[in-house]
């Protein structure tokens, strides 16, 4: 039985653009513009897209590191109590902060250089009631060993570690409060390929041991295919396709996902395909195109795409749910 852990309904994050002497609001950056998404317990959900499509903002909005300007984020606990977390007061939010954690993108800037690893990592434990220092040291030491690092490393400073090690410390930081969901924001993008594989393997192993759920944000679709159960593809603040990870490659429905997949260089001489080269750049999220946001770059665009915004509709491929938002899909819609 699949049970949800998070339900997002019409989540919006609009950043105001201010100008002039009085800081008048002259427009909005529509970073995330109406996202509906269910995340199930124990799954790895990939969130893919190009830079500027709003994937990081969405990840942060879930944790309220960026306040959503509209919509709902519902957290469903193990005994199926629903809580709407975007409207909670700061204090009331605390127990949920413990459940929802994040691993940041850049391992070089996400650790404070003037604290030892223990100094940085003990604060959340202090806050959530681990009173004795010995106990805190034990928890952090155990977790360091779980990510294949030595216990003594906790008294060292961040500059003494390599990029891969720092990213593992970032993972320890996220794990120390025993969370249920971890948002991995480009957790392996800054690492060299040989180190990247180490961290990916570690993430999978921890997921099994601790029964975690990941929201895995990345621009690298080959990593998502390997790691994720389901993948959501974002474009200009909206989800354009959401489906089982294997289906995304075998039965691609949205032309954007198709172009994205064909553009990825594959390290296999037998699997070279023709690239679909999209023209132009991603439009500005300040002033997104009317109709389908993808239509100015879409090779298949018709007149209807210029006027009507396509809804995220449900289809079925391979007997599994497959959501896509495009006017030109021939499959029967499932209601």
């Amino acid at each position, binding site marked *: 039985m699949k049970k949800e852990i998070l339900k997002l309904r019409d989540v919006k994050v609009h950043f105001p653009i201010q100008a002039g002497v009085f800081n008048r609001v002259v427009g909005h950056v529509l970073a995330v513009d109406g996202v509906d998404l269910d995340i199930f317990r124990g799954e790895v959900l990939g969130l893919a897209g*190009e*830079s500027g499509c709003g994937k990081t903002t969405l990840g942060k909005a879930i944790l309220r590191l960026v306040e959503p300007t509209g919509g709902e984020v519902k957290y469903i606990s193990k005994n199926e109590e629903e809580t709407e977390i975007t409207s909670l007061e700061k204090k009331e939010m605390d127990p949920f902060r413990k459940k929802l954690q994040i691993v940041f993108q850049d391992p070089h800037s996400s650790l404070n250089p003037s604290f030892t690893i223990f100094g940085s990592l003990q604060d959340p434990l202090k806050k959530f009631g681990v009173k004795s220092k010995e106990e805190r040291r034990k928890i952090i030491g155990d977790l360091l060993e779980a990510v294949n690092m030595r216990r003594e490393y906790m008294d060292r400073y961040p500059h003494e570690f*390599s990029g*891969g090690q720092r990213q593992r410390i970032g993972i320890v930081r996220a794990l120390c409060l025993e969370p249920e969901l971890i948002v991995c924001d480009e957790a392996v993008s800054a690492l*060299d*390929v*040989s*180190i*990247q*594989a*180490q961290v*990916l*393997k570690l993430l999978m192993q921890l997921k099994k041991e601790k029964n975690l759920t990941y929201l895995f944000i990345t*621009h690298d*679709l*080959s*990593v998502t*295919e*390997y*790691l994720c159960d389901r993948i959501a593809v974002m474009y200009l603040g909206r989800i354009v396709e959401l489906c089982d*990870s*294997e289906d995304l*490659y075998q039965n691609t429905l949205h032309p954007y996902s198709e*172009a*994205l*997949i*064909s*553009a*990825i*260089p*594959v*390290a*296999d*001489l037998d*699997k*070279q395909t023709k*690239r*679909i*080269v*999209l*023209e*132009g*750049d*991603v439009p500005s999220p300040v002033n997104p195109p009317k109709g389908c946001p993808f239509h100015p770059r879409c090779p298949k665009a018709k007149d209807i795409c210029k006027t009507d915004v396509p809804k995220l509709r449900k289809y079925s491929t391979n007997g599994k749910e497959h959501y896509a938002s495009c006017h030109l899909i021939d499959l029967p819609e499932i209601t």
Partner: protein
Amino acid sequence: MESKDNIALSVRDLKTFFYTNNRCNKAVNGVSFDVEKGKTLCIVGESGCGKSVTAATIMQLLPTLSRIEEGEIKFRKNDEIINIEKLEKNGKEMREIRGSDIAMIFQDPMTALNPVYTVGFQISENLKYHTNLNRKQIREKCISLLSDMGIPLPEKRVDEYPHSYSGGMRQRAMIAMAMACNPKILIADEPTTALDVTIQAQIFELMDKLKKENDTAIILITHDMGVVAELADNVAVMYMGNIVEAGTADDVLRRPTHPYTKALLESVPVLGRGKNQDINPIKGSTPDPYNRPIGCQFAPRCNWQTESCDIMPEISQINETHQVRCHKYEQFFEKYNEKRNSKIT
């Protein structure tokens, strides 16, 4: 392979060392390769393996605390052969070559362009020094270069500053700048690392076109095996300042013979192989360049390490094009032959 005419650049036993705090970093330690006209050579490796230093050495753009220690860089200009390593860094001859005969595309388009000059000015600088065109012709050439690169409204865009260009357009402006004087050799140092995959596809399409139309030799530096599979004719895999394996793309990708190449290929998930593919991380991390292992640089991370690895292995020639620097390559290669034979029978 002895038809020397089509070799545009040949590097032999090149050594570039860096000196800081009385210590010496042997960043490039004996590198040899040839670049053919109209072909792409990909140099692959992780960060810190010396691939960018190799490029900077060819362009003589090394920082002050480093120098070319040994070796030669032979550049074929029309019919004469110029030894680049003997030229003075800022001398007249080197400046004539740099930018016109050998051009470079830098890694980060966001920082490689000067924000206080217009894009047009920065492209025309190159033409001003290397050609005899007058101002009007230079401007026309700039506009035609930009439109070749697929930049919309080039007449207007030529007078804009880099900040009003997007990342992909800046990289295209960089390529326009590099291609301004029809170079014989184009060195691209991770040209698409900072860009999205859809923009990356546009840039690759462009580079392919240039290669075919102008017969330019391209040296592409990258860390992505996928890029290699798509673009490369020849591949050189670098690790800690050495080329550990070199050959045609077919040789290296289908029959990787050095343990590092093999490990590198196995450590990345490949699109289209699904969830059941096995990825094997390389154990440990790259060694400190000031505290290198003796002998084979990869030995401490290698699964097939033996005592003989304490001596630096020589380059062994497997076939005409395929070279490898490993003591035990024969065993690896036999395995491939066995596999292939078993497939045939």
